[in-house]
């Protein structure tokens, strides 16, 4: 008995030791692959390694997508057309378009020379492929609602109509016609969204077949194609020699490495394991002050607070106005970090007006000005002189560093300036989202990054029927203004209507408490040039980057 047991023990030990060695060996196999090489140009190849957030979602534009897709698509997929930094149209898969008089039928002429990375021509059917597959709720695509302007799209999504009735048709292989339910003047801005990006009919047949991460079937119509995908570690994009604009593409390879946190990204930049570390925490600004590595970019985002209109005394516009006027945003941003900039607008500070080339919000008077004296008077008028009798409100915010700092400063300022008490309630991000949607809050932090480059992405949120209107806003005047701007074809008049709508919501009714807009700190090797910014979201684009000596 004893001997047998000893044998078992011996074999157990042997097995565990062997497996240790074997597993150790497994890890080594990956050594020769692309990850880890940097812009120094080993063996003369021009390649860069870019840090990206941990793997979330797939690479199929019609599937469940999140950050990983966004990193992939900016280099690998060509949308029909997009806008460049100057606000001009940058034709990509399409070479021209036409629109009928009432902006309801859009016809796109595709580039005849454009092919997928395996040589298959890019046709109108590839675009319709993504749209149809996205409209199946099974796809898990969170952008499907951006297809709803297209005729019958919403009915198809809800299972009330057949996919064949969709308003998008291929007139021939290279002509795509999209018919809308009603006029949509910002339709071209939507085209950069995943649901309007093509997926090759030859391979992209289902959302969960795994074609999107398999280099054999995951073809690209952009400057780079997927060459290797290692889950949770990295993916490699190689230059697509068949790309119609391949002459302009200077890099041979881009490797994206997944990181879980910003600190690791910054350290990996330090050790030379990555060449680009985007969207880092603001402390990086001090560390790299004055160095060429530090590149500050604007993000198209606004952080603000939703006061719940169903909670007393926030239903009183004087109280909302008092809180808005009493917050010193300049001071707040000083405390929170150099990557924030005070704003009293709802529409992101750095969103451009394509007609004028300037920032949209700069083209009108600010909706309101901070004014402590008036704030105190308003609070007194509302029945709370010097904050007396003001109930204790709770502020919900996600327990991220920046939001925690913000919450403390706001709490302190409101106590000092208006003598009102705010209770802080830090929540995990998901919990914060859920409570906000359910309307379970007094005050709730909100952040909105533009989905596309039009103020409508902001203004639509406060409409009475909007998903994101979780604070009980119901304003017919506002709804009418936004709807009117939605169909107004004269750009100048439309801008005026949108300014008016913002002024009404932010500067008269004070439905929100805007705080600041954000900048993004990126570390980029100074030898890498030609990285551009996507105007709609502020994200970095590497397709025409190059390495200089």
């Amino acid at each position, binding site marked *: 008995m004893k001997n047998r047991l000893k044998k078992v023990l011996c074999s157990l030990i042997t097995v565990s030791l062997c497996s240790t060695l074997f597993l150790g060996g497994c*890890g080594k196999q*990956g050594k020769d692959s692309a*990850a880890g090489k940097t812009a120094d140009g080993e063996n003369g190849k021009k390649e860069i390694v870019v840090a990206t957030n*941990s793997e979330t979602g797939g690479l199929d534009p019609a599937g*469940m997508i999140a950050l990983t897709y966004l990193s992939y698509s900016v280099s690998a997929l060509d949308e029909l057309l997009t806008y460049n930094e100057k606000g001009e149209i940058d034709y990509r898969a399409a070479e021209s378009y036409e629109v009928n008089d009432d902006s309801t039928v859009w016809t796109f002429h595709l580039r005849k020379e454009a092919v997928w990375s395996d040589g298959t021509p890019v046709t109108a059917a590839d675009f319709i492929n993504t749209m149809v597959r996205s409209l199946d709720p099974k796809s898990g695509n969170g952008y499907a609602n951006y297809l709803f302007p297209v005729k019958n799209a919403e009915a198809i999504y809800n299972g009330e109509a057949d996919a064949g009735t969709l308003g998008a048709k291929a007139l021939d292989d290279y002509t795509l016609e999209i018919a809308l339910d009603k006029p949509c003047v910002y339709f071209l801005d939507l085209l950069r969204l995943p649901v309007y990006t093509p997926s090759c009919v030859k391979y992209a047949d289902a959302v969960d077949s795994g074609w999107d991460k398999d280099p054999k079937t995951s073809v690209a119509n952009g400057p780079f194609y997927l060459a290797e995908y290692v889950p*949770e570690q*990295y993916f490699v994009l190689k230059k697509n020699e068949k790309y119609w604009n391949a002459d302009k593409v200077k890099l041979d390879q881009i490797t994206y490495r997944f990181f879980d946190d910003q600190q690791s990204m910054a350290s990996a930049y330090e050790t030379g*394991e990555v060449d680009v570390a985007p969207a880092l925490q603001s402390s990086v600004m001090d560390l790299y002050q004055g160095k060429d590595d530090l590149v500050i970019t604007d993000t198209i985002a606004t952080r603000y607070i939703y006061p719940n209109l169903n909670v007393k005394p926030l239903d009183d516009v004087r109280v909302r106005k008092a809180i808005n006027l009493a917050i010193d945003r300049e001071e707040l941003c000083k405390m929170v970090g150099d990557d924030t900039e005070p704003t009293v607008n709802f529409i992101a500070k750095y969103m451009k007006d394509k007609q004028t080339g300037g920032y949209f919000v700069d083209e009108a008077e600010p909706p309101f000005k901070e004014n402590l004296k008036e704030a105190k008077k308003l609070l007194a008028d509302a029945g709370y002189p010097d904050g007396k009798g003001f109930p204790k409100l709770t502020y919900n915010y996600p327990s991220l560093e920046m939001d925690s700092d913000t919450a403390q400063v706001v709490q302190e300022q409101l106590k000092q300036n208006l003598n009102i008490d705010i209770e802080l309630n830090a929540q995990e991000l998901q919990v914060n989202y*859920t409570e906000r949607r359910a309307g379970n809050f007094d005050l709730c932090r909100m952040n909105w990054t533009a989905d596309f480059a039009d103020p409508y992405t902001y203004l639509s949120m406060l409409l009475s029927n909007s998903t994101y209107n979780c604070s009980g806003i119901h304003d017919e005047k506002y709804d009418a203004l936004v709807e009117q701007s939605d169909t107004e074809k004269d750009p100048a008049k439309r801008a005026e209507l949108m300014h008016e709508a913002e002024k009404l919501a932010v500067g008269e009714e004070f439905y929100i408490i805007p705080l600041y807009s954000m900048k993004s700190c990126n570390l980029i090797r100074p030898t890498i040039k030609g990285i551009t910014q996507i105007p709609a979201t502020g994200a970095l684009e590497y397709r025409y980057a190059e390495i200089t000596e």
Partner: protein
Amino acid sequence: MFGYTCKRVFIGILSLFVLVTAAFFLTRMMPGSPFQTGNVSESVLTSMEEEYGLNEPVFKQYATYLSNLMHGDLGISFKKPGVRVSEVITRAWPATAALGALAIVLAAVVGTLLGIWQASTKKRLVKGGIFFSTMLGTGIPNFVIALLLMLFFGVKLKLLPIAGLTGAENYILPVVSLAVYPAAVITRLMRNTFQEEMNRDYVVLAKAKGLSWRRTAVTHILKNAWIPVLNYIGPAAAFLMTGSFVVESVFTIPGLGREFVNSIENRDYTLILGLTIFMGVTVIGINLLTDLLCAWLDPRVRRAYR
């Protein structure tokens, strides 16, 4: 011994069932939904929840999950399109297991040697030095050590890579950060038992017999002194093999711990449950194995089971 083994296996399965049930209801009680992200609209959210059966009553979901589990099906990840939970586990486990196994081997070797040294040396400086190190080792959490190692060897000296698991050198820093705590504990355990055993009669006898110090230490003392260490190594190995959450995140290691943290953040229900079950099986299994081993090594323990 057979009866005892049966009893222990039964208890193991029972605890696993309790674990699955608790984990299932806890995930459903968590506020939030797998499909909730910053910019998703309400209609899309509702249709997706329906698609994945999340609109059904919780008990019905539980029954479905259990019946699938009985067939060995852990389901499909909610957040990784088209990926089975079992695939995620088979992919992530080797990295975690390799790190855990290396760390425990390193800790056992270093801990044993340091423990013996500390117990048998007469130099006060060495004694004090080792004592101080074990204090530090048990006192500093492993992610702090990980960050310090990363800053010093990676960022400052630029000697070792700090992200991913692409080469042999990638293993060094995470393995060391994982090994520090168990090594310190083993050193302490080893020193205590070794010191106790040194004064036993059989050691005196061995000495009197004229056996060399090395032989006495290795063949006689170590055999007895190792029992408490073995008792500790079992659960410690289970713990390391199932993932050390923060260290994996710090060094961006594609292992179970990182998957687990991400799955909770993403509310990926099936993945959370799958990983919980896998870790539960591992921990319960290794504990069972250690208990049986101890029973075999130490007759007194065995007698107690009769």
